């Protein structure tokens, strides 16, 4: 396992993770997962609840150290968080003492540089996400959907090449979710970013992704992989759900998910 492919932004080679519990028992969460995320590709990982999806995500961005295996960033093995990762969770994790725009500027501020530039970029993103005029609002005054949009803007602000999303839309109501998914999709495609989406929502995975990877229950391995090939406009998420192929993929993945 010398090196990865330099043309692939993010690649996992046989990564696994075990924890040792307090009573000395070894608990294997991830057995072995290998895959590559190509440039501009949207891939979903779906698995039954509690299969270790979040652990897997933390391994991929090297917030956690794998027990075995390696993570490659453009062909180089990484041991800390690689530059160019955007990370988004179900919780929006907005800092309550910062206004919306200050939250969007957080990653830029960490990177350093001119503040006026940061503000410009943050303003542009807020506008693109339909939040113009809300920049000076504190998170506590925004709705759940708006907060998640601010979080999305914060994630996109440092211009990450790879986005790692852990069920970021699952707490939203269906309507809000479809709208924010559509905007995310548009931005990701436009900016040629790669997106890895971890979700338990099969329909969400099929509607958004180029590829869906199905995970087993714990200890987690890859069960199967589906290339999603749907006709028509991929950005029309409602129409997509009604197309014939869509139901086929969803049914197929459901049976493989092994939900008892």
């Amino acid at each position, binding site marked *: 396992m010398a090196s990865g492919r330099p043309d692939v932004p993010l690649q996992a080679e046989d990564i696994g993770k075990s924890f040792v519990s307090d009573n000395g028992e070894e608990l294997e969460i991830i057995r072995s997962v290998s895959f590559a995320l190509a440039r501009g590709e949207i891939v979903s990982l779906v698995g039954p609840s509690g299969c270790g999806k979040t652990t897997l995500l933390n391994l991929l961005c090297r*917030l956690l150290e794998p027990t075995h295996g390696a993570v490659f960033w453009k062909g180089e093995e990484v041991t800390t*968080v690689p530059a160019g990762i955007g*990370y988004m969770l179900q919780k929006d994790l907005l*800092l309550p003492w910062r206004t919306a725009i200050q939250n969007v500027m957080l990653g830029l501020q960490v990177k350093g540089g001119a503040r006026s530039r940061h503000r410009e970029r943050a303003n542009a993103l807020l506008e693109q996400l339909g939040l113009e005029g809300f920049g000076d609002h504190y998170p506590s005054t925004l709705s759940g959907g708006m907060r998640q949009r601010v979080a999305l803007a914060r994630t996109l602000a440092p211009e990450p090449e790879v986005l790692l999303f852990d069920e970021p839309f699952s707490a939203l109501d269906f309507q809000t979710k479809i709208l924010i998914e559509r905007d995310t999709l548009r931005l990701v495609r436009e900016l040629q970013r790669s997106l890895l989406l971890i979700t338990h929502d099969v329909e969400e995975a099929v509607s958004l992704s180029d590829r869906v990877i199905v995970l087993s229950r714990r200890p987690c391995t890859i069960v199967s992989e589906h290339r999603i090939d749907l006709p028509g406009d991929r950005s029309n998420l409602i129409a997509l759900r009604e197309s014939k192929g869509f139901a086929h993929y969803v049914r197929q993945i459901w049976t493989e998910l092994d939900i008892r």
Partner: protein
Amino acid sequence: MKILACQILCFALFIALWQWQTMAGHISAFLYGSPAGIVAALVATVRDGSLWTDLATTALETLAGFALGNVIGTTLGLSLWYSRFVSQVLQPFILALGSIPIIALAPITIIWFGTGFASKVAMSTLSVVVVSIVIAYKGALGVDPDQINLMLSLRARRPQIFRLLVVPASMTDIFAGLKLTVGFALVGAIVGEFMSSTNGLGHEIFKSGSLYAISSVFAELVVTVVLALALSGIVTRVERLLLPWRHDLS
């Protein structure tokens, strides 16, 4: 509004009953004081100006101790976030220091800092500092680990995480600590004045008590209560000013 009316009524009734009973001779004004006596004592201290010097002395001691104790305590408490190892090593010492009744430290502070302003500030600081350390450290530890992961994913270094996340996230706890310790600082200053002093509210209370001037004791107590309320009022104001995002405060 109704609550306030009832509160005022209760207070007025109590004062009236007290005054009536002392005037009727049922309770001794010498032992228990009387509202009229308290007012007279207050007026006398205002006339000769001693009220203001005593009030200013105690207020300054309290504020100095409060500021010093909280600056030291908060700085220490927050920096303990940096090293779990250091914080675990220090834990028993902090607990031991916290368990000492502050009044027991009074003789030492007088030997070290003299009988003037400095020893009262020292007493006041000591009353504040341990609580302040514990609260700031608890606040720093309470930061959501997901939020720290988010900062790490943005490739923030530890000092950045400290400055951009841990310090502001601890502010809610720190302000709760300020509200608590402003009272402790006052207690420390008054205790210090009890031990040895030439002026201050504690000094006057102690002196009037020794002279059986009960109405004067009550008069000084009233001033002390007003001082305590004013100080905690200031802290609440400052909190509202500095944490504008806390909409639940206003």
